[in-house]
Structures are given as C-alpha cells and as structure tokens.
C-alpha cells in the first residue's frame, strides 16, 4: 500500500545573484523566488497520475521532493503516514536525462536494485525476467551507449521495476526520443501499469501523453505554482483521442486552462 499525501507543500529559494534592493544592507540576501506554495494533493495506491504545467512551473521539483532528493521545503509529504526523509528504493525515480550508469552493462544496471539479494539464482532470474519484459533479451551485456534512445529508456524502466517499488516517479521520461519510439514506449508503460498496478506519477508537458495514460490529470500554473485543475479520467484503455469525444473535450479544456487558445 502506498497512499501519498501532500499537505501545504511549498518551495522557495533565494536568488543570490539578483540585485539587492539596498547594496549596503547585509540582511538583504537577494530575491526570494517562490517555486510553488500551498500544494495539497493525494495519490491513491496503484494510481497513474500525470502532472502537467508550463515549463519552469516546478513540477519536476515537486517530483524530486516527493522522491526525497530535496529536503528543503515547507509543508509535509506523507507516504502511508510516514514523512519521507531520504531517497529509497521503495520509490524509484526515472530521470529526464538518461539515468543509466554508462560504465555498467544493461545487466549490471538492472542488478543495482537487487544487488543485496542473498539468493543468487533468484537474483539472476529476476534480472532476466525484467530484461525480457522490456524486450531487451540479447542486449544484457551491451553498454548503454551501444543502445538506441528507446532501448535505454526501456532498460531504465526495467531497472526501476525490478526492485518492485511501491511508487514509480517519472520525470518527462519520453524527452529526447523520436516520435515513434515515444508512442511505443508510452504504450509499453500503459501496459506495464495495467499489469503491475504500481502507483505511477509522471511529470510531462505532452498533454496527449497525459490523456492516453492517466487515471487522473493534475494541472499546475506558472510559478508560484498552484493546482489549477484536477480531473479524473474514466475512459477505458487503450485510448484513442481522435475517436473519443470526451478526451478531445478534455484536451481543449486543458489547453484553455493553460492559456493556449487552441483551435481543434
């Protein structure tokens, strides 16, 4: 079980490079920049949530705080009632840029989360299982640089899922992929989610990705960001935006919310 509660989450930082209002005032350390303030959200177990928002609105920062990478924030984040204090392999992060360790083969990368398993046989079987699942069979001993972008992404997903995490955080996981690979990996993630039912929280700026994938869409506005829209999607999967009027209406609505005058 993994119920995530975000209560009154706020994040700001001091921009020391910005000009002081009074150069003689040593207490004036620069401008305070509010990334977001007073965010209240709740995520249910097994839910697939997509967070949309304009770039720079702090959605990645929010995800990093939830994963425990950043501890300087206001408010609190509770996972099953417990405050998160550090990153842990219970909630794995899939990075925007490639997070595979380039000096390790696909096999060694997937092994990272399983390296403390006592039973060698079980370890090997699990590694192979997840490599097979993302269809990288035969590429076990390739280095990341020897794989295509899509294959690297799949290897990273295999590594993330192999530790059997409670929560999977994905920070714009399709960035840098060509369009077809993007669609293909997206479909694979949707299938994986149907199959393993983990809580998945994904930050993206592709509205279509959110429409195709999410159980719930959360839209943030520009900084200081607040939640300006929350919408549950009850459409069956696989989804097709062109054939589903409800999804098209929702897309228009999201575009309007984000201030884009979108003409369908």
């Amino acid at each position, binding site marked *: 079980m993994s119920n995530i509660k975000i209560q009154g989450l706020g994040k700001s930082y001091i921009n020391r490079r910005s000009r002081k209002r009074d150069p003689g005032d040593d207490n004036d350390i620069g401008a305070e920049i509010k990334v977001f303030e007073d965010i209240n959200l709740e995520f249910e177990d097994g839910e697939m949530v997509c967070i949309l928002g304009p770039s720079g609105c702090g959605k990645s920062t929010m995800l990093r705080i939830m994963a425990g990478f950043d501890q300087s924030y206001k408010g609190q984040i509770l996972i099953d009632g417990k405050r998160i204090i550090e*990153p842990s392999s219970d909630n794995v992060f899939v*990075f925007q840029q490639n*997070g595979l360790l*380039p*000096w390790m083969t696909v096999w060694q990368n997937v092994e*990272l989360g399983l390296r403390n398993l006592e039973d060698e046989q079980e370890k090997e079987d699990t590694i192979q299982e997840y490599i097979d699942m993302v269809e990288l069979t035969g590429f076990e001993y390739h280095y990341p640089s020897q794989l295509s972008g899509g294959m690297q992404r799949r290897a990273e997903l295999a590594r993330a899922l192999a530790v059997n995490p409670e929560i999977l955080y994905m920070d714009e996981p399709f960035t840098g992929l060509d369009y077809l690979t993007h669609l293909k990996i997206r479909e694979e993630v949707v299938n994986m989610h149907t199959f393993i039912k983990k809580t998945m929280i994904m930050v993206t700026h592709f509205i279509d990705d959110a429409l195709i994938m999410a159980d719930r869409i959360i839209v943030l506005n520009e900084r200081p960001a607040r939640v300006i829209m929350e919408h549950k999607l009850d459409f069956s999967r696989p989804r097709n935006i062109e054939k589903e009027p409800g999804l098209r209406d929702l897309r228009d609505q999201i575009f309007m919310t984000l201030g884009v005058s979108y003409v369908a």
Partner: protein
Amino acid sequence: MIFKRNFILPIVSFSVIIALWELVVVYGQWSVQVFPGPVAVMNSFYELIMNGKLLKDSVASLYRVTIGFYLGALLGIPLGIMIGRVQVFKYLFNPLIQFMRPISPLAWIPLSMLWFGIGDQPAIFLIFLSSFFPIVVSTAIAVERINPIYFQVAANFNFTRMERLSKVVIPAIVPEVVTALRLTVAIAWLVVVAAEMIAVQSGLGYLILDSRNALRMDYVMVGMIVIGIIGLILDIIMYELSQIESVVASRFGR
C-alpha cells in the same frame, strides 16, 4: 586501408628525417665527432646494445620513472578524489597545490640532493613531484564534473558510501584520469633525464651527460633516440589502456 595508412605514414616521416640527416652530414662541413651521421649512430647503437650498457641505463631510468610515477598516482588519485568530493579538502588543499604546481620539478634539484643524497631517491622524488600535482588536479576536476544524476541514482538505490565510491565516482573518472596519466608519464619521462644528469651514475640521462664529457656525440644521439623510442612505447601503452571497452563506455557518461 586505415590500418595501412596508420602504419605507412609514420614510416614515411621517419624515413624523410633520416634521409635529411644523412644529407646534412654528407654535404655539411662537420666532423664525425661533432655531427655523426645515421650510419655511425647505428653502429654505436649496436655497440651499446652488445656491451649491455644501453639496457642497464634504460632499465635504471624506467625503474625511477615507474616508482616515482606510481607513488604520484597512488597518492595523487585519492587526494584528487577527496578534493573533488569534500568542500573542506578543496579549500584546504587546492590553493596550496596551485601554488606548488608551477614550480618546475627541476627547481627542486638542490633541495632533493641535500635531503636524499646521491642515488635513486632524489631522482624518484623529482619524478614523484612532476607526476603528483598534475594527477591531483586532473582527478579533482574529473570528480567535480561527474553528472549529479549518477549520485541521485546512487541515493535512489540506497548505495553505501563505499558503493558510491566504487560504483559511481571511480568508474566515472576513469577516462579522464587515464588521459591525465598518459600526459603525466610523458612529463615524468622528460624529468627523469634531467634528474639523471645530476645525482646518479646510471640511466639514460647519465649516459648522455657522460658521453658528452667523453666527447662521444654518437653515444649522445643514441641516448636521445632511445629516450624517444621508450617515450613512444609508453604513450602507446597508455593509449591502449584508454581504449579498454569499459573505459570507452564510461566516456559517454557526460
């Protein structure tokens, strides 16, 4: 085709140089004692190989370079990692190292002779100095440049401190450190010859100095040629080291 070109072009340039050398000797006004030609030098080369002197001196030089260089790497790489990872060490050591680094190892000759006397130690000490500082600086820079994402991955998968060192920091800096070692060996090899002209009775530097005193310019040239050949071989070895598959793979991590 590429292999052939790689192989033949260097031979062409070497042949041209030797031919020019021969031409200058034949049409020049110098006596054999002042400017020996390729044939005379080849004969002396053969002579020095046969009486064992060349091998003995090469081994002596290589021994000093090896010890000094290994000492420099063994102390320099860990210190560089600490400077790159820990702010306190950075502020503690970095200015000191930047101050010591531009002082030529040769400027240490008087002090090293006073401290270590005559023999291998002062030469090894100079080699150590010439290797240590470049290695520390390159290692520290390489560590600082590691992509922060890898440390986040390490945190995400609950790496211990040791694992962070052995699975992230060390593999991440290998390509840059190998390059630094390659450059440093060349410096160490330059310095050993100079060091051997002062405090010792063996080595290629001593061979050159001793032959000059005996007015045997052919031997001087043999010494120079052997220094060049060994330097070339050292560079090839270090280059091959940087081409190992896992080192090449690490290089894509930036």
